[in-house]
């Protein structure tokens, strides 16, 4: 690679590390952390949606029960 300044050896390591970090930030694909995070997030979202559905159904059933009792009690 041209244009790399001739840094003293103790700075060269740091330079290469910084370069790697910048390249990682510009990466077009997900790194390991991002990948597992996305996967976990999706799984948790699905699990939460299931739980919400369960509680919602319970609430609906209770509401219907009360409505039925009110209708029956009114007669």
């Amino acid at each position: 690679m041209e244009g790399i300044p001739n840094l003293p050896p103790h700075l060269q390591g740091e330079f290469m590390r910084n370069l790697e970090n910048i390249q990682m930030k510009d990466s077009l694909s997900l790194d390991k952390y991002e990948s597992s995070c996305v996967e976990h997030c999706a799984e948790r979202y699905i699990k939460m949606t299931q739980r919400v559905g369960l509680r919602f159904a319970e609430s609906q059933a209770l509401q219907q029960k009360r409505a039925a009792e009110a209708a029956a009690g009114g007669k």
Partner: protein
Amino acid sequence: MEMYTDLFNKMASTCFSKCASQKHKEPDLALGEMSCTDRCVAKYLEAQEKVGIVLQRANEVQAKQAQALADMQNAMGGR
């Protein structure tokens, strides 16, 4: 029916934002997150019901006003 799908989706999305930690270290929900979900659903539905009642009341008031206006116009135009 569409109302229910919409309600469900919005509720799930809201409760997820409020209750699930954004770190997503694990693929499962933690105990605290699950009880948060239960509370979230209960409160969301109750709030929804209250909003519905307020809206219904507002509609009734508006309907009465519209009717009163129509009656007045009829009375005036009836000569």
